[in-house]
């Protein structure tokens, strides 16, 4: 399904959006496929599909370990793209947003890379180390090929940059909720809610908030504050990394968290509507 259609559909359903983030191949390919299935069946609306990179500088310890494990197992970008194909072959309809660091598409060639992921069945791409200043090639090629470049904004982003980023954003905007790296955090920062407000002033593009979201309450809070949804990554990885020998055994627990997050997204939206009546 097309990303914009899906976002529209969720908007109509008056639900906050839930995008889990996984790193493909951690601890093995099969598990990731099962994990994505579980997540989708339990309330994931989009999937952020991570292609592991050796030096994930925007990621905290949980995802660093995830990348390292996957790479040790021999995962390559080509195998990841094959994974996307498999998901689509198995009938997955959920939009897939590929995440990877810039060197991965760079060495393949930006156009070739985007074409490949498009053909495999992805809808968009997130490149955490690609600020707007360096995004021209990827934006241009993405537009031609039909892959959204999902841009990020952060608490440090000032007015001028917010305007610049929101002006060219397509698909949705990834709102980095905290100063720092990915990783489940206990509490939601107050500043996260302020940031949502600040970004909202510049754009109607959907806002998904990530970095640190790990609980239903977090999801509810950010959606009620005006975000369109949340990205939850390390919180899921933290569950299965406790049982890397048989990660499948942790899928029920993951399913439960996914349901809760989605519930938070729904409740948050309800709250948002009440607040903005």
């Amino acid at each position, binding site marked *: 399904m097309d990303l914009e259609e899906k976002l529209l559909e969720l908007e109509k359903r008056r639900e906050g959006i839930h995008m889990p983030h996984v790193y493909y191949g951690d601890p093995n390919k099969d598990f990731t496929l099962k994990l994505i299935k579980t997540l989708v069946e339990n309330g994931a609306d989009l999937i952020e599909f991570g292609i592991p*990179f*050796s*030096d*994930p*500088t*925007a*990621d*905290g*310890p949980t995802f*660093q370990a995830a990348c*390292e494990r996957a*790479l040790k197992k021999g995962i*390559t*970008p*080509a195998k990841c793209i094959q994974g996307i194909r498999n998901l689509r072959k198995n009938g997955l309809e959920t939009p897939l947003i590929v995440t990877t*660091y*810039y*060197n*991965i598409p*760079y*060495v*393949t060639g930006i156009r070739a890379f985007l074409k490949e992921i498009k053909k495999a069945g992805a809808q968009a791409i997130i490149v*955490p*180390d*690609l*600020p*707007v*200043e*360096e995004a021209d090639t990827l934006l241009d090629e993405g537009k031609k090929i039909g892959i959204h470049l999902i*841009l*990020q*904004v*952060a*608490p*440090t*982003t*000032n007015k001028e*940059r917010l305007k610049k*980023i929101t002006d060219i954003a397509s698909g949705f905007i990834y709102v*980095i909720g*905290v*100063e*720092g*790296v990915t990783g489940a955090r206990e509490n939601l920062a107050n500043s996260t809610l302020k940031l949502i407000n600040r970004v909202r002033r510049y754009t109607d593009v959907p806002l998904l908030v990530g970095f640190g979201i790990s609980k239903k309450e977090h999801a509810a809070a950010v959606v009620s504050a005006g975000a369109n949804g949340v990205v939850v990554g390390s919180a899921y990885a933290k569950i299965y990394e406790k049982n890397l020998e048989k990660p499948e055994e942790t899928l029920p627990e993951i399913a439960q968290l996914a349901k809760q997050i989605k519930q938070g997204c729904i409740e948050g939206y309800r709250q948002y509507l009440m607040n903005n009546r």
Partner: protein
Amino acid sequence: MELRSEGVLVLRKGRFGKYGGQYVNEILMPALIELEEAFNRYYPTPEFQGEFQSLLRDYGGRPTPLYYAKNFSELVGCKVYLKREDLLCGGSHKLNNALGQALLAKKMGKTRLITETAAGQHGLATVMAGNIFGLETEIFMGVKDMERQASNVKRMKLLGAKITPVKSGAGVLKDAVSDTLREWAACSQTTHYLMGSTVGPHPFPTIVATFQSVIGIEIKQQILKKEGRLPDAILACGSGGSNALGAFKPFIGNKDVKLYFVEGGGESLGADNSAAAFQLGKPGVLHGALMQVLQDEHGQIKPSKTRAAGLNYPGRGPEISYLCETGRVNACYTFDKEVFEAVKVMCRTEGLIPALETAHVIAYLLSHREEFGRGEVVILNYSGRGDKDLKAIMRYFYGP
């Protein structure tokens, strides 16, 4: 817009040919922009220059001498001068940059410095500069490097730095840079990342090269005074390239001056035994910049390997990447074994114990004597002293 900075064509801000750029998360972009503005605002002012130059002179010990190494010259057959950065306070060229950036951080109102270090020389320089300006310092260092450069860890600790061991990856420089970038993402509004070499996103490569180019400026004056002419060749070791660019930059336009950049060959050029990114790498994006970098065919960065902790980085800074690509600088390497032997030669001929990094240029000259004619004037950028490597060197020659 076309700019010429010391002979290098700059087509786009922060780019050297295709190399460079600002490949960082949005979180850090405002800090980079702020830094660039601050550098452009403060650096040219007489106040900044006054304070900076007087610290370089009185604290650092600049100008460092250009020493005609008579005994060593007799051995290799050309006329060898050593640019004595080993005499700089702290024992390497790193202080030139650390003082400059710390002063800048102070002017920007930052209260804290973070950085990574491999050989420990840059970490040391950073805490020295931090103490002078009353800035807290936190140093990220790979656990493997902490072990092999233990004496510098002690020095930094004694000077009051917080030292954070980096266990991820191979526990070496690459991993420490990653972790410092991560930490910076959490504190960039109050904290300056005092980048240690001519790597990382713009404006770091330019700032670091600018602060380090005092080396080459002095070399030019000194060699003109001593020889009445420019040198035939300048050799510098490097990974990121800060001491090399520092020495080379004022000579880029002097096409007759041959420039040699010696990287860490490690054990061999075989798989995963080397740090020779110009031999084994290709262009890629790491730590915020497009540069020559060791990587596999899929774009995964490969760990480098050399006994010299300070050369053990898979990337070559954007500017040195460009200069080697265009052929203005010759990219060379030497192997660990030659490097240790070179240490001994310098000890015996001139009474100086070089850092393992520095010993790479010595080794290169020793094993390529035939490239340099009898009357040729050759300058080795003698980037640091070997105190930090004493244990490793002793173990190499005399066993454990």
